């Protein structure tokens, strides 16, 4: 495997881990290697920012809560 392919694989894995970390699903032991990768990879840092921006946007637009009428059985 060429070095560039190895790097692409590392980025793919890191970008998956970015999604996992925002949901608290990244195992602790993988945190350090993700941080290390992000420190040296601008593309993945941008991915992190994009992921955080998605969370921010979703947080500002919560789904409506069911109204009381919705909780009543019909008929």
């Amino acid at each position, binding site marked *: 495997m060429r070095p560039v392919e190895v790097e692409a694989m590392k980025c793919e894995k890191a970008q998956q881990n970015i999604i996992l970390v925002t949901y*608290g699903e990244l195992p602790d032991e993988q945190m350090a290697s993700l*941080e290390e990768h992000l420190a040296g990879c601008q593309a993945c840092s941008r991915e992190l920012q994009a992921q955080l*921006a998605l969370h921010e946007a979703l947080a*500002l*637009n919560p789904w409506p809560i069911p109204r009381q*009428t*919705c*909780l*009543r059985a019909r*008929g």
Partner: protein
Amino acid sequence: MNANAMGLEGGITPVLSAMVGGGRARGASALRPVLRLSALLDAADRVGATRSGAIESSPAMAKPTAQFGTKTDRNGGKLTEAQLDARAQQRAEDDDLIREAQRGDRSAFDSLVRRYDQPVLRLALHMLSNEQDAQDVHQEAFLKAYRHIGNFRFECSFYTWLYRIVTNLCLDHLRRRKSRREDPATVLDARGDEMDLLSNISDTRAMANPARELDRKHMGKCIHAALDKLTPRERTVFELKHYEGLKLRTIGEMLSTTEETAKNTLFRATRKLRAELAELRS
């Protein structure tokens, strides 16, 4: 949104540390249970409950890792001892109620309904964005649970079993909707009137900053449109993860698949959402 606005100026590490414990479930928090399923359950008793497509709990639906329909305060993705104790107690109480319900005690099943009717309705509403459909799924889910409670084998928690019923019913609705190409932005309320879901979100900031409110509403519509572009399965996994805060392992069990598949579906859904939102906003 620039790096400074996201708090990235101090480097990536603090952001990651802050994110552990992030990704909280969002959703309804204070709903009063008012639903009465008694009439429907009475009818199910009279009909004798058809037994086709029996729903059984399976060993694969293992112990859940997130509380049904509640926000989970996280400690690096791990539950505190108090949360574990509370969960164990709830599970024990549920199991007692299920045993009584299996012996034919209707009031025990009613207690289970009272425990779970809000989370079930909320999940259905999140997934379907339609009150009428959500109510249908809500009632259908409890009817199915009632009819098949005898098949429950205590190999998983009641909520995992019930959630599986709900998500499967929602998936059916979403698939039917896709095939009918319904406009998800036009939804019907309980009276059958059209309503704009986004306009129903109360936000005290609206009066203080109308421009921001307009932006927020626009973004809300973009999010709605982007979610609708997901496949039913992608949307289900995303909803269960993002809004309900369930663990990927639990989601995999609920959807009769592996944690790895649920994880890959979440990756796909998240990337599609981001790409779709970027396109809609540009």
